[in-house]
Structures are given as C-alpha cells and as structure tokens.
C-alpha cells in the first residue's frame, strides 16, 4: 500500500463530505479508521455489489475511490448509497462524476423508515451500515438499518455493521448482543469482528469506539417483495427513547456545492474607512 497516495485519495473524499448534523447523530469517523475500514470492505467485497444503508462517513466513496486508483486490494463491482440526507447523496454523485466513477458508485435519496425500493430488494451481494447506535433505544435504530440492509441482499450475502463498542460503555454491549441476535435469526453468522476498531469526531466522548461486525450468510429462502414502512412504535423511538423520527429528508440547498453556501456573507471593501 502506498500510504501517501492512499491519504491523498482519502483527502479527496473527506473534503467532499458535507458538514455533519449532530441532531441526527451524524458523527464522522476519523481518517485512519476510514482507510482501514475502506480497505477491509473492498477486500471482502472483491467483485461484489454493495448496498450502503446510510453513509455519512463516506466509506463507500473511500472504498470506490481508492479501489479505482488501485491503492487497495479488492475491486468491488458497484456501490449503491442510500441516504436520507440529500447533501450526502449529491456529494457522492458529484464526486463519482468528477472522478469518472459513475459506473462504480451511485447514491439515492431514501429514508430507512420507508419500504426499501423494490429495485434493491434482494439485489446486492453485501450490505454496509453505520447507523445511529441506539444508546437509549436498546438498539432499535441499529435493527432498523440492519433489517433494510438484509432486505437488500441476495440469499448468499455479507453484511458490515459498524456500531458502538467500548468496554467502558455498557450500553454498547447490550446493543451488540441485540444486533448479533438479529443477524443470527436472519440466517447470518459472525464471520469477523474487529473490536473497538474506529474512533470519531465526537468531542464530548472522543474515546468512544465502534466495532466492525462482519456477518455472512450462505443461503436463505427466496422471498417475494415484502418491504414495509417501519411500525409506528418503532418510529416513536427511532433515534432513542422519547426521540421520534420527525424528518423525512434533509434537503441540499447548494446542490452538492454547485450553488454558493448560505453560511456567510461578504462585507465590501471600503477604501474610505
């Protein structure tokens, strides 16, 4: 691995990420862990299609960009990013266009509360998700994202689940157990787990880490399309206890940076003053 070239590639990806919105717990992964996660995902997904259920971190872009530049082993066939934040969707698609990767990565607007679009039903070889970690809803938000990922993959499939994992935070172990049980019930087994693998730009708990749980399924019953809107009680605690889902989409007012930001104004130079 040419470390410097990898970091240049990641730098392209990171500068392309929109500002994270803490209200939705968009808390971005730190650079070294992005590189390791992108490499790991690309290696597992060589020749496969991958469905990302939300991807504020931009692991899909990192994986595709570095893989496209032959900086890492593994050549995923295609990545699809589904996200409810139009800024993320636009940032992925504009990046793909700028770097000539539109045949390798694509993003669409989608909220996990909605039924999975039929075009993605059991279509992909792998899913990836780094959902809201469910600290105060017993992992409910994790389950919602993982279930959509499972809906989107073929009977024989791999899943990458990035969730809180730290020995000083007991809730992370409860959620991890809930998540493992869910995947086992859906026919998966744990193929690999990288314990306390990632750190985040989380200023009030910078030590909090997440694991990469890789699950694998050899086969499953073929099912006809049956994706449904999340039940009301799940929506009520979507982001946590007493914290319901209220926003369907975050809209991008800059069209992926093509329009000027509204975050600032310019004061004119006045030679007289």
């Amino acid at each position, binding site marked *: 691995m040419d470390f410097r070239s990898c970091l240049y590639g990641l730098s392209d990806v990171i500068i392309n990420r929109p500002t994270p919105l803490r209200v939705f717990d968009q808390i971005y992964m730190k650079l070294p862990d992005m590189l390791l996660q992108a490499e790991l995902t690309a290696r597992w997904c060589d020749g496969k299609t991958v469905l990302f259920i939300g991807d504020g971190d931009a692991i899909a872009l990192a994986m595709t960009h570095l893989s496209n530049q032959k900086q890492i082993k593994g050549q995923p066939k295609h990545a699809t990013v589904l996200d409810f934040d139009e800024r993320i969707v636009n940032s992925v698609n504009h990046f793909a266009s700028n770097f000539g990767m539109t045949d390798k990565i694509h993003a669409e607007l989608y909220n996990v509360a909605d039924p999975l679009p039929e075009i993605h039903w059991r279509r992909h070889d792998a899913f990836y998700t780094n959902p809201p*970690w469910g600290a105060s809803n017993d992992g409910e938000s994790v389950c919602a994202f993982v279930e959509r990922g499972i809906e989107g993959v073929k009977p024989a499939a791999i899943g990458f689940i990035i969730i809180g994992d730290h020995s000083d935070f007991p809730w992370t172990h409860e959620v991890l157990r809930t998540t493992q049980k869910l995947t086992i019930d859906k026919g998966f087994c744990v193929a690999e787990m990288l314990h306390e693998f990632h750190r985040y730009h989380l200023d009030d708990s910078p030590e909090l880490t997440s694991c990469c749980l890789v699950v694998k399924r050899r086969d499953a019953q073929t099912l006809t399309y049956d994706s449904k809107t999340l039940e009301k009680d799940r929506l009520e605690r979507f982001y946590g206890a007493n914290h319901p889902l209220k926003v369907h989409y975050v809209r991008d007012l800059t069209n992926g940076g093509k329009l000027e930001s509204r975050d600032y104004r310019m004061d004119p130079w006045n030679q007289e003053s």
Partner: protein
Amino acid sequence: MIEVPSKIELPSKFLFMKVGDHAAEPWEQILARKRRELDETGRIFWGYGGNACHPINQVQPFAKLVLKEMNDVVLVMEFIHSNADPDIVPATEYSTDGVIWEPIPKGIKVTGSRYALVLDEIQPGDLEVNLNWYEVAVGPSAGKPAEAYLQGRTDKACFVKSREERIIETPSENHTRKANFFAKLKDPYAVVLR
C-alpha cells in the same frame, strides 16, 4: 429580593451546566436581563453552544424521561469565571424540531448561541454535586462517569444518579461541585437557534 434557600437536595436526574460571563456581558448583568425576560415573556431562553446536550436529540428526550418520574426538570448551574468570546450576534429565530422556525419572541435576547434551554425563574441555591454519584443519561456518552465527562472542554450534561458511588482513590475538589443557581425547565425545554 430573592431569599437564599438553604441546602437543596439534588434530584436523581438533572441538567448540569457551567455558567458565567458571556459575550462580554458580566454574570450579574445577564441575570438581571434574564429576570426581565421572564417578567415580560413568561420564560427565559438560556443560550448555549457546543455539541453536548443537543436540544432535540438529548435535552428534549431527557426532559420527557424525567417528567415520567418527577414533577420538574431541574438545571443546576455552577458559576465559573469564564473567558467566553465576545460574540454578540443575536439569534432571530428558534425551532423546537429543526423543521418549523419561529421568530424569537419579543423581549427575549440570546446572543452567540446555537441552542437555548427554556427556563422558568433562575434561583440562587446552595447545591453540592458529588460527581462520583452521577453519570451521563442520554446520547452516545450514556453511562460515562460524570467526573470524566466534565473534564476538558465539556461544560454541560444530562446526568442520572448511578447505581452506586464510584470510589475514587485520590479524591479531588474537582469531584464535588458547588452550584449556586438552579432553574426549572419549561416546555419545550430546549430549542435550536439561528
């Protein structure tokens, strides 16, 4: 004249915040302004910033959790000498959900803040917070010991009483905080500003 109450017992769940001079405005002047705000509008917008205690995903859910068990959500305020930046840009709109925005009510002024707690009267009090007894109640840091959470840049938190007191081998004064003011939160408890 507000009578200074005797020692006040802490509830098992409360908000904690360090307070002091802000935006080049002395603490006493802030208190006087906020009392006028309460007289005129029936509530106080107490501005704050940072990433801890986000109004929508932490304070509001925490307040609802507290109100299932007790009558009031209490903010405990520890006075510190602050070097807050003299940022005087006033907010013009507020929102309880980030979707619907309304003008800041006449009589309320919040400067240099992204968020605000919605408070009733700010009262002087004699409160002692033994941080070894509490931990973070909500959010990704849930379960983190209070004394560890308040180290560094973090100056506010939603706390819940731990099952048992943590025994610290080398106790420091930093583990016991003297709080001089408190206030009850009012519906909608916290808002986002712009």
